[in-house]
């Protein structure tokens, strides 16, 4: 499924007017989300939503066609022992693996997301990054996960970061663009907010927390700040932007808390794979195990859930 990307005017926002963020206050709000008790039918519904929002990911130097084909198999058949499950939202791979994924997912309504722009460091030339983007799209990627130039951002070269996103968005054509902020390298929640505002004004269809290659990856705190930025941007422009926390969300309980946070910050319209994704690999099996437990009353061994 690929949505026609929405065209937006690109004007550099005034980063001096971005709201301050109080880290203690953010921690307290997060703690309240984590104290929500999600049980019974609402738990089952949440777990199924989680599964449908996963970008099943493999981004390793040792990825091979065999690995990617088996991952795609998992994307389609999460757990056939339990009928009525959704499939994942997307498979996420390196550009050179996009063709393999496209072939393996033929006939299935699963997105093919490709990283690009010298993932994960972003340390390369503009030309190389745009070429890589175009190559991935040509090979069949319906979504591009780019990284911002953190070095340039931290050095205050905001126009450079902005222009780069605009250029990548153009190179995407019809593919949807996710912009990875790499929040673990930004230092403060204030900067996470600024980077979010910058990325959205530059045309991001999604803003994403992390590459998953460094610590810390996604946290509820940075995700909350980004969700609040999305909300303010929506109020200002009328344009919806999606959110993808990535890395470090390996258990279903945490993922459900993210859904609580999403619901109470942005509301019902964002609670679909169209606007929210989990960048994860082992989350799927924990969610499946929890679903099986809800329906059978017992926990099965991890060996019953395929590791592809």
């Amino acid at each position, binding site marked *: 499924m690929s949505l026609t990307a929405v065209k937006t005017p690109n004007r550099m926002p005034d980063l001096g007017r971005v709201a301050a963020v109080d880290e203690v206050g953010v921690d307290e709000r997060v703690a309240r989300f984590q104290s929500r008790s*999600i049980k019974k039918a609402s738990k089952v519904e949440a777990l199924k939503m989680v599964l449908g929002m996963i970008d099943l990911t493999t981004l390793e130097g040792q990825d091979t066609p065999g690995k990617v084909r088996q991952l795609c198999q998992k994307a389609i058949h999460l757990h056939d022992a339990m009928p009525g499950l959704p499939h994942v939202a997307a498979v996420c791979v390196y550009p050179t693996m996009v063709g393999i994924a496209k072939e393996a997912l033929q006939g299935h309504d699963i997105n093919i997301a490709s990283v690009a722009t010298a993932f994960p460091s972003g340390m390369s030339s503009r030309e190389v990054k745009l070429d890589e983007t175009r190559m991935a799209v040509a090979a069949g990627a319906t979504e591009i996960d780019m990284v911002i130039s953190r070095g340039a951002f931290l050095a205050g070269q905001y126009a450079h970061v902005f222009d780069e996103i605009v250029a990548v968005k153009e190179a995407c054509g019809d593919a949807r663009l996710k912009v990875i902020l790499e929040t673990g390298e930004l230092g403060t929640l204030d900067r996470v907010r600024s980077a979010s505002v910058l990325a959205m004004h530059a045309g991001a269809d999604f803003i994403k927390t992390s590459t998953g290659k460094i610590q810390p990856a996604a946290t509820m705190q940075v995700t909350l700040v980004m969700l609040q930025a999305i909300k303010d941007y929506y*109020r200002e422009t009328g344009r*919806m932007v999606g959110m993808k926390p990535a890395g470090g969300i390996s258990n279903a309980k945490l993922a459900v808390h993210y859904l609580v946070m999403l619901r109470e910050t942005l509301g019902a319209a964002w609670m679909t794979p169209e606007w929210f994704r989990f960048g994860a690999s082992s989350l799927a099996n924990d969610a499946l195990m929890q679903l099986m437990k809800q329906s059978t009353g017992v926990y099965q061994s991890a060996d019953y859930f395929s590791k592809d």
Partner: protein
Amino acid sequence: MAIPENKLAFDGGWNYAPAPESTDHIVVKKRYGLFINGDFRAPEKGRYFDTLNPANEEKLSRVAMASQTDVDKAVKAARKAYTGPWSRMKAKERGKYIFRIARMIQERAREFAVIESLDGGKPIRESRDVDVPLAAAHFFYYAGWADKLEYAFPGRKAKALGVAGQVIPWNFPLLMASWKIAPALACGNTVVLKPAETTPLTALKLAEVIADAGLPDGVVNIVTGAGDTGAAIVTHPGVDKVAFTGSTNVGRIIQKALAGTNKKYTLELGGKAANIIFADAAIDQAVEGIVNGIFFNQGHVCCAGSRLLVQESVADEVIEKLKDRMETLIVGDPLDKNTDIGAINSRMQLEKIESYLKIGQSEGGEMHQSSCSLPKSGYWCRPTIFTGVSQSSRVVQEEIFGPVLAIQTFRTYDEALTKANNTPYGLSGGVWTDKGSKIFKMTQGIRAGVIWANTFNKFDPTSPFGGYKESGMGREGGLHGLGAYVKLEA
């Protein structure tokens, strides 16, 4: 650019299933006597009254109505315990009893939390995570002071006052009992305490803990009753020290009654705190601070941030975000773990709040409430804000004691300060800004006993709490709280 249909709706789609806390494990007797001299005993006139669950108006139990004679008995028992075992006991041993009470509150925490929510209406999440842990913490903290009083007041000798008569309110029943009893015992006093008439149960469970802890008979006496019982305690000639938390009106009456007597007293009364948001605040977190300040515990908080003063340049944004946040607040069964706002404590209080909603509208204020559903029976009030009100509005001046916020704008720091201080109350206040120098300047100018910066409603046993002006006199908590329960000699 035209904004298409508003996508920011919190209704519809995924909702939270009921997540009720179990009540199987609690024990509430059909009827409770008065806890005097180590035992529960029948009231002299044999009169009892019901205590209800405000969430469904069902009767939970019957408790005794203490008469003057019963109060006499209690004070006599307290006096006997004071001159007898309690003042003769080594301070360290006194401390051990208080530690034991603290420990037992922790052990029975779940039962205390559930009963607190049933009797008073506050959400189980609050009683479980805030009220009960803080109550235990107060006993732990003051237990440690029992044998260190000579270090608390350097160069002075601290002596107990004698019998303390204590009257507490219904908004934090167990916590208020611990705020009163713990320091009194630590300093070597004995106690006669009356819980509020709508929330007697956790005080009576505390009496059971005290009996199980083996505290000598008469050291703590808990007598239930209404206004007359409270008056009897406070004016009793056998009481050396009075501690009262409640309304400013009653505080005035008590102060009049005690004028010219030898009784020492502390009064913790009402408030109408200003929560002040500057344009350079972390806006999203400040909105959360507003919500925390006025909606949690149903606004039944003396230090509630019941007035919002928001800098005019960000007022529209703040109010819009506040309305969004209000839509996500869940009003409902206090025993549901997802409930944010529980039941209003009593029919009387609900009627009082509703009368203010009418007053606010009739004085020209614009009222906005969240759209949440309410349970069919019980006492409920949706989170409410008033805009278009000013210093001369009654909803801005008077304490409503409900989930009702009055919103005003200001332009400059001076104007904010003037408005914040233009009230006979002076219990608390809040300041929201990202600029450190503004915090210092503002907090030094606000005339209130407890001021929070970039946060709200933070309590700790080590931190003194109390008001300026008509919010009362004296402090509870910390060293200051100790000082209220001793007389100092050279």
